[in-house]
């Protein structure tokens, strides 16, 4: 009886674990993590905004020069649009996942 049970149990192979993907722990602001890169990119966008602000202020105060200001505004505009694109894609992806019926 015992041996029969052993046979049956021995015939049942343990479930093989699928190879676990190594996913970087989120929340770390270290190099290479998605959050870290995103924060860095947003920092750069912010820097360009501040730069454009300063240029506009300088022109308003009579200093600076016009085309440098326009270029700074343009840079700020383009980078902001890019940031918005990334944000919209992220939100879309999030909504898509939340709609998923489990």
């Amino acid at each position, binding site marked *: 009886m015992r041996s029969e049970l052993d046979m049956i149990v021995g015939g049942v192979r343990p479930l093989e674990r699928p190879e676990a993907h190594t996913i970087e722990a989120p929340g770390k602001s270290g190099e290479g993590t998605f959050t870290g890169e995103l924060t860095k990119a947003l920092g750069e966008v912010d820097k360009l905004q501040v730069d454009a602000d300063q240029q506009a202020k300088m022109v308003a105060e009579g200093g600076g*020069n016009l*085309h*440098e200001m*326009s*270029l700074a505004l*343009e840079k700020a505009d*383009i980078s902001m*649009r890019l940031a918005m*694109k990334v944000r919209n894609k992220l939100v879309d992806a999030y909504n898509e996942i939340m709609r998923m019926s489990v």
Partner: protein
Amino acid sequence: MDFFTALRVSGSGLSAERTRVNLASSNLANAETTRGPDGQPYKRLDPVFQAVAMEGANATPGAPGEKPMGVEVSQVVADQTPGKRVYSPGHPDADADGFVTFPNVNPVNEVVNLLSASRGYEANATAVETLKQMAQRGLDISR
């Protein structure tokens, strides 16, 4: 971002052309100036342009000497050709013989210079405009 390299290059072009406009208008304004800060008649000024390496241009592929380059005004030189001499003994700046030396500025040349500088400015501004449209078009792909 490599996208901004062209913006910086065009920006340097805009600055250089503006300097050229500044000098051309200075020449025009002083076309009849017989006395400068040094007591001598005004001499027409010319900018000398020089290609300079741009920061961020390293992302563009190519040999080290074949990267996009900006432009800057390396120096401003005073034209040393003698100005025309006009006999006018009553003039305060007349020399011992009664001749007044006028600047070596030819207004016609300066206006042509001005036009050329203004067109150059426009060309650089158009390059910026094109770049902006390209950036927006590129972002519109993922709409």
